[in-house]
């Protein structure tokens, strides 16, 4: 194909109707592909399409321009119905240079034969290496069967703005609006919203670029798509998981978030730092994770439940302080945005590797609640639930999200603010004569705590074994009594939970069990198999500790049960692996132990969300076995 080609073809147009399409925009970082992608997602959502956007971020802060590892941008899966995950490979990509494109090809992220809209300026680039690299790559891509369209984006933008680098992303957005038949007015509104804070002039020139892109595409491209939309009835918002967590913190009535920066959790506190004070909240950046957790525990002890947000390495560091909160029965919410491990691992990549550490991480018996949101909407509501449980049971509640939820965007029904979400003001009333600070209920283990300021409630909280008066005690029976009370609270909470809903039939050949961010992909795979008449169902656990009632009954109704997780499990196919030494995935270990059901597991730990098509393959294989 040559530069002129599209112009020729432009005569005979065709608008293809699609169920869904995956599009991505990539550039060097700083060229605005990120924003272009986010805007496209928002516009699609406004159109009433289902979307799921996934960030494409380079490992380096500022990788050299035009480098294979430097791709920065966004991938948007657009569908006519609700979209629950990032899906499989990309159908259409807009690239600002050919090198970043190569990176995506190398990572096997592009569907064979996918459409490529490539900035063509490099072909005529003064620097010979550059132009040659471009031509060579271009030709290889064409040869490989990709549909490559060379687009003079730079050239076209220069007709409107002096510095095309600033505007190219809006030009691309315009092209995409044409390609996906989006209403340009929606696009204009979206731009107005995104650049809200900026000067009108900025907004205007961006809109000019948008329109130029749209017109150019209309005039020069020989294809376009229409993805029928099914607009949601209720008003929608589009955010990522970290923003959802931050909004959850705000809406839960928690007043303090203590943290220490760590990828990929930080954006939560960035956002909170910006907005929390407006509602009287506070973000404290401590000197390290231990101090952050301790600060939060001190604040919870003296007022209402607080929250600390971190990721794997920080979570490991907080273990001792978390144990103190458990022992002293101080409410605390700990959010762990899981990343690739172990150790420093893969800071920006997704993994579900911290489940066992969340449950067993602190020495001794330190029972705590562990929850895992499965969607972005879940991230929001889980925090509100977590705060309530923490305060009702005086327990530590760990909320496990991950690097996929944290940076992916998805529309969901705009939450209707509810006063009952908020924590009640902390108690300052006098303590009745003779009341004890740890007056554990014989059945549930629950006790009401006294908060500094309450007359007559004076006592010294301690991480040492203590009696109902909170006096340090080495008496064997007292130690037993305290352990029992702290453990019973989990059972008490478990009684309040309802059994998990089965996705698909209540019985069948294969049940898939998942937790966390894999829900969308698992259910998509299950659905597609069911459509082919396979007896596959799935359940997705939001509580990992305690586990909901009724799970065993569900498991028993299926011939085979397996978990799909993104944490390590040995492959039974490995030469030296057998049943006596195979290391199972986390959830599988928990299910096998509790229900004595032969739960198999399949896991992939490659730093990427598991694709529905991959899960499909795995389930088919399992069904055959």
């Amino acid at each position: 194909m040559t530069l002129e080609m599209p112009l020729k073809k432009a005569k005979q147009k065709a608008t293809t109707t699609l169920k869904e399409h995956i599009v991505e925009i990539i550039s060097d970082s700083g060229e605005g592909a990120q924003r272009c992608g986010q805007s496209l997602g928002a516009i699609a959502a406004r159109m009433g399409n289902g979307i799921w956007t996934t960030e494409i971020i380079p490992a380096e802060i500022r990788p050299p321009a035009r480098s294979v590892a430097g791709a920065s941008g966004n991938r948007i899966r657009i569908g006519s119905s609700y979209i629950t995950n990032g899906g499989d490979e990309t159908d259409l990509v807009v690239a600002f240079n050919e090198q970043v494109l190569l990176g995506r090809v190398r990572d096997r992220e592009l569907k064979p034969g996918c459409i490529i809209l490539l900035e063509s300026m490099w072909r005529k680039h003064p620097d010979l290496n550059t132009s040659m690299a471009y031509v060579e790559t271009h030709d290889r891509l064409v040869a490989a069967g990709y549909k490559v369209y060379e687009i003079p984006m730079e050239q076209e933008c220069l007709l409107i703005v002096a510095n095309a680098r600033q505007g190219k992303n809006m030009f691309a957005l315009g092209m995409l609006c044409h390609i996906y038949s989006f209403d340009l007015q929606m696009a204009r509104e979206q731009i107005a919203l995104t650049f809200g804070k900026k000067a009108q002039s900025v907004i205007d020139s961006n809109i000019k670029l948008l329109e130029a892109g749209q017109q150019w595409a209309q005039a020069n491209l020989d294809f376009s798509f229409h993805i029928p939309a099914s607009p949601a009835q209720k008003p929608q918002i589009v955010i990522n998981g970290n923003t959802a967590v931050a909004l959850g913190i705000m809406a839960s009535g928690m007043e303090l978030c203590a943290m220490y920066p760590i990828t990929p959790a930080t954006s939560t506190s960035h956002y909170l730092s910006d907005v929390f004070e407006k509602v009287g909240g506070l973000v404290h950046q401590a000197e390290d994770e231990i101090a952050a957790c301790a600060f939060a525990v001190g604040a919870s002890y003296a007022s209402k439940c607080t929250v600390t947000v971190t990721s794997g390495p920080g979570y490991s560091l907080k273990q001792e302080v978390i144990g103190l909160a458990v022992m002293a029965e101080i409410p605390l919410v700990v959010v762990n945005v899981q990343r690739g491990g172990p150790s420093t691992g893969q800071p920006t990549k997704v993994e579900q590797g911290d489940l066992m550490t969340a449950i067993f991480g602190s020495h001794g018996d330190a029972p705590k609640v562990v929850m895992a949101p499965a969607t972005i909407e879940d991230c929001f509501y889980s925090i509100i639930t977590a705060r309530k449980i923490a305060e009702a049971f005086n327990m530590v509640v760990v909320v496990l999200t991950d690097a996929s939820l944290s940076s992916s965007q998805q529309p969901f029904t705009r939450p209707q603010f509810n006063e009952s979400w908020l924590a009640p003001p902390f108690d300052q009333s006098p303590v009745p004569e003779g009341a004890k600070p740890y007056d554990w209920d014989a059945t549930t283990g629950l006790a009401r705590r006294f908060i500094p300021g309450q007359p007559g409630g004076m006592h010294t909280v301690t991480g040492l074994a203590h009696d109902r008066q909170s006096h340090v005690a080495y008496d064997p029976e007292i130690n037993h009594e305290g352990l029992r009370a702290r453990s019973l609270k989990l059972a008490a909470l478990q009684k309040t939970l309802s059994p998990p809903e089965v996705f698909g039939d209540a019985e069948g050949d294969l049940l898939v069990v998942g937790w966390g961010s894999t829900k969308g992909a698992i259910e998509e795979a299950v659905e597609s198999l069911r459509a082919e008449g396979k007896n596959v169902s799935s359940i997705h656990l939001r509580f990992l500790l305690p586990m909901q009632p009724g799970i065993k009954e569900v498991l028993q109704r299926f011939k085979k049960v397996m978990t799909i997780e993104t944490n390590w499990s040995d492959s039974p196919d490995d030469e030296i692996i057998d049943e006596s030494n195979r290391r199972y995935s986390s959830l599988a270990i928990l299910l096998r132990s509790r229900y004595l059901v032969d739960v198999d597991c399949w896991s992939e730990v490659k730093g990427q969300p598991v694709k529905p098509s991959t899960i499909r393959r795995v389930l088919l294989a399992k069904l055959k076995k």
Partner: protein
Amino acid sequence: MKHSATECLLKMYDEQHELEDYQSGVPRWCTGCGDNAILTAVQRLCRDEALRPEKTVFVSGIGCSSRFPHYMKTYGFHTLHGRALPIAEGVKMVRPDLTVFVNTGDGDCCSIGAAHWIHAIRYNMNLTVFLHDNQIYGLTKKQASPTSPIGTKSNTTPRGSYLDALNPLSVTLGIANASFVAQAVDWIPESLFEIVKAAYHHKGLSFVRILQRCPEWLPKSLDPWMQDPDSIQLLHHENALKLSAGLSKVYKNQLLHDPLDMNRAREIASTDHVIPVGILYQNRDIPCYEETRQSKVLRTTETIRNGFETELDKYSV
């Protein structure tokens, strides 16, 4: 006020009494332990200042000295080894209405808690911090601490410790926002009390290093200092502590020192032939973190609702 003071004085006594019987009479420190003297001084402070027990919190780490809160009939938090400061900060941040004291040991503060110590000084929250420096790990039965003089024989240094002692004063004086740095010794009750009192009245983090005897593990180590009054150098100044006739008679080695003079303060902190006792540095103009961070917004359901809705608007499609 007068009234409630005496009232509280009486209260303190019964409470003291209560305290005693629920703590089986005596604090669980060895006889002759310097912590007892510190406890006395602090209990006297609480009584004299008529602190309301329910509005007072003692936060400690882990160590002999960190058992302190158990002997006060106030609120207390006996936390983790090294973590007293960040936990106390959390308390103070959300509850500026509470009076918060911190008891920490030389291992607790200067070894495992060193990072928190540095940053607590920098936050300069309104906390009164007592470093019970007995120059040894007491509770774990005699291991060298960062403040153990070089050559100290301990269970982990049977042939004598290898390093010069860390000087908590000179370190603290090197940290940004240090606003009150003083030193006391457990065996001069009067000055101990005066310093504790000045620390309590200082707005900001007051750091008081108290040289504390540990007869159990280092029975004689402080004797030379105790036996020679001239080895004690009393700091005094009109803007700091004034010397009583009584003290002046016994302790002839006195030094006029302006607590605003940081360079001199650092020099004094580093003298090793005498023990400077008194206020080395005090600056009343350094803001407290809990105040600079206090949000200007009144926190009502409405402010939350409105703030929340405004945010959602940004993300509406």
